[in-house]
């Protein structure tokens, strides 16, 4: 645990010493949120049934949260560490090798928390409200940050497997089908047939729906929240397993 904290502290220092990566990670989802709302706000008034009396921004807010924390930043940092030989230095140190991956992911939790809070704040400025109150706000930030940690496993595994910056960067494209084959603009029931089927198969659907229910409804919907937590946990376990396996093979 001590090793993970030490390596996480280093990774967090990287985040604030290289703010450009985090700024762009926040700017793009906020930009999309503003543009989307500007385009459809008048079509979907608060009286629209699926908005439950809120502005459309409230419906979009969870999408922006997921968008903001789903990055390849840690994967790129890992491949840079491999390039400059720092991973070798860590592999030659008497530490658990898994700490090398966990240290990076722990930093993702810190970054994800800060980024989620910022996106939530912008959502509030645009008129969104979290109906579940403070508990809902805390859950939104925490679950978004944890999703960021789970999702970081994709780029991390690619980085450790490929040891190549371009390949790791290209892993970002995975996010587009994951984000857009979801009920991101309208509820699942309103999606066209094939798209609805794909959305049902997409784990991000359950993350967005769980977060969205925390925003739209005054009481916690345990079913959607449970599905959200389970999806994040399963995604995290599977992707971290691949990252750790790739790390164990790095010295072959």
């Amino acid at each position, binding site marked *: 645990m001590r090793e993970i904290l030490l390596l996480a502290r*280093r990774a967090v220092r990287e985040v604030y010493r290289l703010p450009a990566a985090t700024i762009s990670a926040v700017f793009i989802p906020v930009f999309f949120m503003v543009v989307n709302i500007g385009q459809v706000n008048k079509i979907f008034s608060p009286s629209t049934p699926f908005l439950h009396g809120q502005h459309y921004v409230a419906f979009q807010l969870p999408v922006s949260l997921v968008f903001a924390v789903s990055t390849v930043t840690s994967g790129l940092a890992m491949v840079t560490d491999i390039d*400059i*030989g720092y991973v*070798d*230095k860590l592999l030659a140190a*008497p*530490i658990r090798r898994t700490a090398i991956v966990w240290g990076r992911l722990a930093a993702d939790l810190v970054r994800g928390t800060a980024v989620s809070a910022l996106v939530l704040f912008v959502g509030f400025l645009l008129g969104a409200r979290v109906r579940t109150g403070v508990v809902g706000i805390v859950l939104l930030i925490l679950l978004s940050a944890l999703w960021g940690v789970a999702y970081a496993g994709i780029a991390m595994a690619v980085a450790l497997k490929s040891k190549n910056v371009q390949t790791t960067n290209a892993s970002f494209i995975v996010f587009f089908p994951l984000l857009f084959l979801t009920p991101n603009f309208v509820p699942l029931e309103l999606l066209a047939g094939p798209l609805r089927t794909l959305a049902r198969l997409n784990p991000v659907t359950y993350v967005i729906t769980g977060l969205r229910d925390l925003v739209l409804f005054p009481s916690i919907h345990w079913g959607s929240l449970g599905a959200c937590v389970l999806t994040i946990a399963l995604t995290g376990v599977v992707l971290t397993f691949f990252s750790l396996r790739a790390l164990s093979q790095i010295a072959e």
Partner: protein
Amino acid sequence: MVTDSEFAIEVRGLVKRYRGSRGQAGVEAVRGIDLSVRRGEVFGFLGPNGAGKTTTVRMLCTLLPITDGQAQVAGVDVGSNPAEVRRRIGVALQEVGLDPRQTGRELLELQCGLYRVPRPAERCAELLALVGLSEAADRTVKTYSGGMRRRLDLATALVHEPQVLFLDEPTTGLDPASRATVWDEVRRINAAGTTVFLTTQYLEEADQLCRRLAIIDDGRLVAGGTPDALKAELGSDVITVGLRPDEHLAGRDALAALPGLDHLTDAAEGLAVYVTEGAAAVADVVRLLVEAGIRPGTVSLARPTLDDVFLASTGRRIEGGTPEAAA
């Protein structure tokens, strides 16, 4: 199991074989080498690019699995107890493994934490002073010169006072002043009792620093011993005499009677005279030539170099054998 051997490193029949991919044949980068490095010595591992130096070091540092053979480092078997080996060794590899966005002090403190060094702040200050980076300690590494980075890398390898320090080409790419500073650091570290295993392709570096060395070529050891013994094995010193082309024949005749003469060859601007005791023979060379009516333009004496040893061992000169040649 830890053994209390007089050797810091003992290697028997070490092999590294990389599997081929997609129908390609595998590559045997290290082909059964034996090595013994005594505790407290600076051991040089010399060879050209691609000879197998770095692969050997990476196996000994637990960064690469050993295909075959046995290796003990600091009394611990590398294959069966890599975690214990890592506690006992320091590693500064060819790529300076430093995060450019951290300060020198932060990196050292992190390294102290990972090795659970007691009183890390004091240890960092001590090491920063040792490598002459106290003033630059709170600057990010990206502002450091190549020499400063190399010295910081050395310091990170020393936080836990390792028994054995592996240095993989520690001066590659450095300017002469930085190179000399790193050499001083290596001598100081060794004087404090640390065994140093140093790979290099620079013959001068091996000559300056190493008590004993081994030459590896194409994955096999081709020579080993002290630098002086290796040179002495070549047998001869060489006296080069500057002569006009029309004096070569007469010069050869005159020097045929030289005591201790091994053999004579034509050199670029005269004759190369190979003798067992060069210093003692210089006066006789000049005397014999003068008696034959020949006045040599220049006379120079040279001992065999490690480059000559490398030539004799491998049949070719080492590429980039000096930092200047490599630049």
